[in-house]
């Protein structure tokens, strides 16, 4: 399976993403464990940002 290399915005570590990721998907940095979200995604490039804090109306 191919993968996408990108950089964690928190710790600057290179993070490898599966090619099956989706925009807006929540992931964890394999190095610093920060919760991240995929802000934008093209065929071979992904931009990550820190996932937002839990809001009052979040849930099931």
């Amino acid at each position, binding site marked *: 399976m191919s993968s996408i290399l990108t950089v964690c915005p928190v710790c600057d570590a290179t993070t490898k993403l599966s090619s099956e990721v989706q925009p807006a998907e929540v992931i964890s940095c394999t190095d610093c464990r920060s919760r991240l*979200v995929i802000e934008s995604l093209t065929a071979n490039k992904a931009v990550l940002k820190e996932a937002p804090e839990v809001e009052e109306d979040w*849930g*099931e």
Partner: protein
Amino acid sequence: MLTLGILHTLIRADEKLLLQAATRRNIKTKLVDVRDANFNPLSYKPEFDLALERCISTVKGSYATKFLESRGITVLNPSTVANICEDKFLTSLVLQKNNVPTPNFTLVFSTEEAKKASEQLGGYPVIIKPTLGSWGRLLAKINDVDSLEAIIEHKDILGSPQQKPIYIQQYIDKPGRDIRLFVIDGQAICAIYRKSEHWITNTARGGNATNCRLNSQLRILAKNASEAVGGGILAMDIFETTDGYTVNEINHTMEFKNSEEPTGVDISGTVIDYCLEVYKKL
């Protein structure tokens, strides 16, 4: 051929499982991030036939559902179901009205009434929870009148308008676990025990999930509670008491990623199958 719109904000593991289940069934999906949507009725053109509402934000999911319904699109769950399930007071009212066992409860707006209501519910401890909320957040087990006064003062001063109604529920002494019952169209499909030494047993708070075998009482409870709130795709939180099962809450955008493995049930696939079934009846 169905194109299924999946309304979302963040994509969790649950949404990934749903997408994979749709792919396995050759069902086309269209991801709709409602944070980027422009719900202008004069210009909006849906690119799907039926929508599955999976927003992590209850408010955004609710508005998206109502908008799409206004355009004639069927959304699962419908707004009529979501409106009840997203509000713990409304859920309790509907369950009680339909004779579905549920812990005793009340709603008040002042400390003095809260004191009287707590006695009326059998005395301390009682539970105070936000009418809108999830994952066990901001639940308070009130052991005495001092705690009651403190919690209500904090809600009054620090809380949003949504925190002003004081929903009080009878405390149920659970056997270190509760049951999460997955129900689709009135049919119980599987259940897990959520075990925790803490009185809050949500898996979001660290509760441990193991399989719970379905029995006839759970199946009947599932059917009755589902009918009470309007059906659809539901996850019910059930307490075991000496008098039998009682329904604590019902979730309308259920999380299930930790439940497929212990139950061995393809929950995501069953959800997608239900979407297809509803679509075929449109």
